[in-house]
């Protein structure tokens, strides 16, 4: 019983990981806690749902479209809501992104209602001894891995990625070197929301959802960021796997109501013992 639960949890952990990576990237680059992260995850879910239902496009192909839309939406949110308060105290950026959260949830509720939706897409399962795994979960984990690799290649091997890292290290110095810092911040915000939208799209392939569903993934993302190290995308992935594993294993031994208790005990312990997270804070 332990092994199947652990494998289930780890596969889910990959998806949690890229959701948290988006939050972590935005925090790492611009010190902004993005409270619109949850609704953007939900929009990613609806993106896959709407395209799949409208034209029957394979959800994994739809993810490319969802990613582009997530990137553009993030850039738009940055210029409209975040840019003017980027240098203000943290409370201002919190309130600005919380406002975006409320706007998306409000419009989403009006348009989609809070009815649960489901992408009627299945690829069957594979059975390996005692473990039965749905292909949708396996592909979601693989997709999360591919996205992580691409993000690292982008940040470490491309000029815009290097520029983002330069802005993270020292915004003033980067500006003096001729880097358009505002655009790099906008791009970082866009990448963060893109990751959130992709994670939402992947979740939609195996869990039903509503426009309010992003909230719980946003909360998990915060926990994961602290576990892995705020601002560290690789740490976010590791944190995601850790959280997924805990969610898989704990219910095998005790009631599920203990899952958040133990998760948040770990959260507090990390804050006390290693506040920079397991992998430290960096981009």
């Amino acid at each position, binding site marked *: 019983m332990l092994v199947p639960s652990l494998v289930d949890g780890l596969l889910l952990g990959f998806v949690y990981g890229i959701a948290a990576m988006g939050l972590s990237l935005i925090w790492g680059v611009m010190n902004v806690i993005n409270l619109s992260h949850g609704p953007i995850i939900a929009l990613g879910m609806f993106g896959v749902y709407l395209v799949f239902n409208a034209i029957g496009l394979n959800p994994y192909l739809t993810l490319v479209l969802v990613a582009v839309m997530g990137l553009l939406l993030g850039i738009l949110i940055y210029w409209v809501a975040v840019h003017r308060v980027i240098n203000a105290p943290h409370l201002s950026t919190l309130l600005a992104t919380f406002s975006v959260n409320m706007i998306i949830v*409000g419009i989403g*509720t009006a348009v989609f209602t*809070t*009815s*649960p939706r489901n992408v009627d897409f299945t690829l069957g399962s594979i059975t390996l001894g005692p473990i039965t795994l*749905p292909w949708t979960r396996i592909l979601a984990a693989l997709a999360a891995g591919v996205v992580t690799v691409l993000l690292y290649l982008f940040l470490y091997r491309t000029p815009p990625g290097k520029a983002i890292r330069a802005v993270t290290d020292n915004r003033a110095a980067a500006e003096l070197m001729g880097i358009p810092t505002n655009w790099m911040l906008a791009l970082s915000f866009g990448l963060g929301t893109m990751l959130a939208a992709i994670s939402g799209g992947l979740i939609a392939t195996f869990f*039903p959802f509503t426009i309010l569903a992003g909230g719980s993934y946003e909360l998990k993302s915060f926990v994961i960021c602290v576990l892995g190290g705020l601002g560290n995308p690789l740490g976010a992935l590791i944190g995601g796997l850790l959280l997924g594993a805990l969610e898989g294993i704990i*219910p*095998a031994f005790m009631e*599920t109501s203990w899952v958040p208790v133990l998760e948040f005990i770990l959260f507090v312990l990390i804050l006390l013992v290693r506040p920079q997270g397991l992998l430290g804070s960096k981009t």
Partner: protein
Amino acid sequence: MKRIVHWLLIFALLAAFLAACGPTPEPTKAPEPTKAAAEEPTKAPEPEAKEVTMVIGYTTSQTGKYNVSSTRQVNGLTLWMNEVNDAGGIKLSDGTVIKFKAVTYDDESNKDRVQELYTRLATEDNADFLISPYSSGLTAAAALIAEQYGKIMITTGAASDATYKEGYTLIFQVYTPASRYLTGAVDLLAQLDPDLKKVAFVYENTKFATSVVEAAKAYAEEQGYDIVLFEGYDAETTDFGPFIEKIKQSGAEAVLGGGHFQDGSTFARQVHEKGVEIKFFTLLVAPPEPDFADLGEAAVGVIGPSQWEPLAHFTPEAAKEAGVEWFGKSGDEFVEAYKAAYNEEPSYHSMGGYAAGQVLQKAIMDADSTDPEAIKAAMDAMDILTAYGRIKFETSPEAHGLQIGHSMVYIQWQKDDAGNLVKQVVWPPEGKTAEPLYPKP
């Protein structure tokens, strides 16, 4: 700075002057209640006839997680109200004609807002009657207020038994109580497979679902079933992998439980994806919803209790056989009227809202009065059959207002000859539209 003060003074003087010249402003009320589409009272043709407009107060979850179910519930109630008003109202023997007006607010699916708004409905809006919000949790909050201000409240969309065991005297329940939600499923299982003994209960940790499964567990144990697993999950659970592993380990052949739509549909989907071999699978709330069919193959064979289904066939003849009075229109007429008004199939939430209105209407007709005491007495004495089913209230002080007449119907998703998913009523035997699919594929 001086210039700003100067302009402010001029503005204040101008405003004071305009206020003195103009009409007395209405006192500001916030938030402004939404007036539901109800007829304005018209003058009665005969001088002795007196027209009374009674106010029905309730909240709607226009936002938040109960948005869909609550909206359907209110649609049903509004349909009833419009029908009564359009038909000229309720006529009493003294010539009084009663029409209805709705006052409603958005409760945001939030218990605190419910308490605040029901207090407003009872005190500022002077509601004559109250209808509950959707869900047991919100209704428990509203019931306290209704009782405190001496207002009759008809509850719908609220199945938990606990509210009616608080000693209240003015709260009347339309839904079958939670304690009887799954007992019919146990009876169905006993009929389908007398040899099956191992049953698992996996349920949402909410007031509603817990009270349902605790009652069903006690009933199943009485029937000799071996409860091999009895475990709750959080309302936000999305990964049922650990529970599915526990079901496999326990050797359960029948699984009962669930809670609401989202968790129930997720659970059903994962049971299918993981290829769990269970023969009988019954979930609360989710299966009767039309959207459950989105699960495709995962929906086939899943059974769910429902307060009402359009397929359910209650008739005046059935009322005569049962020795109770028939009241209102038939189920088909209700479905037709609802579709015409809202362009969608009614769910049991819609019928619950409509039935709540019917209960009030019948009580006023039986009381032949607008006196709350007389109406309460009429409700206590009520025993009727409607398109929604039988309605009768417990009158003992221990559980006053609890619904004791109505019972659930059980639906199962099956495939028709063309391979399309269809809902069939499989229990009780007198109302079934198809043989149950057993064991679950």
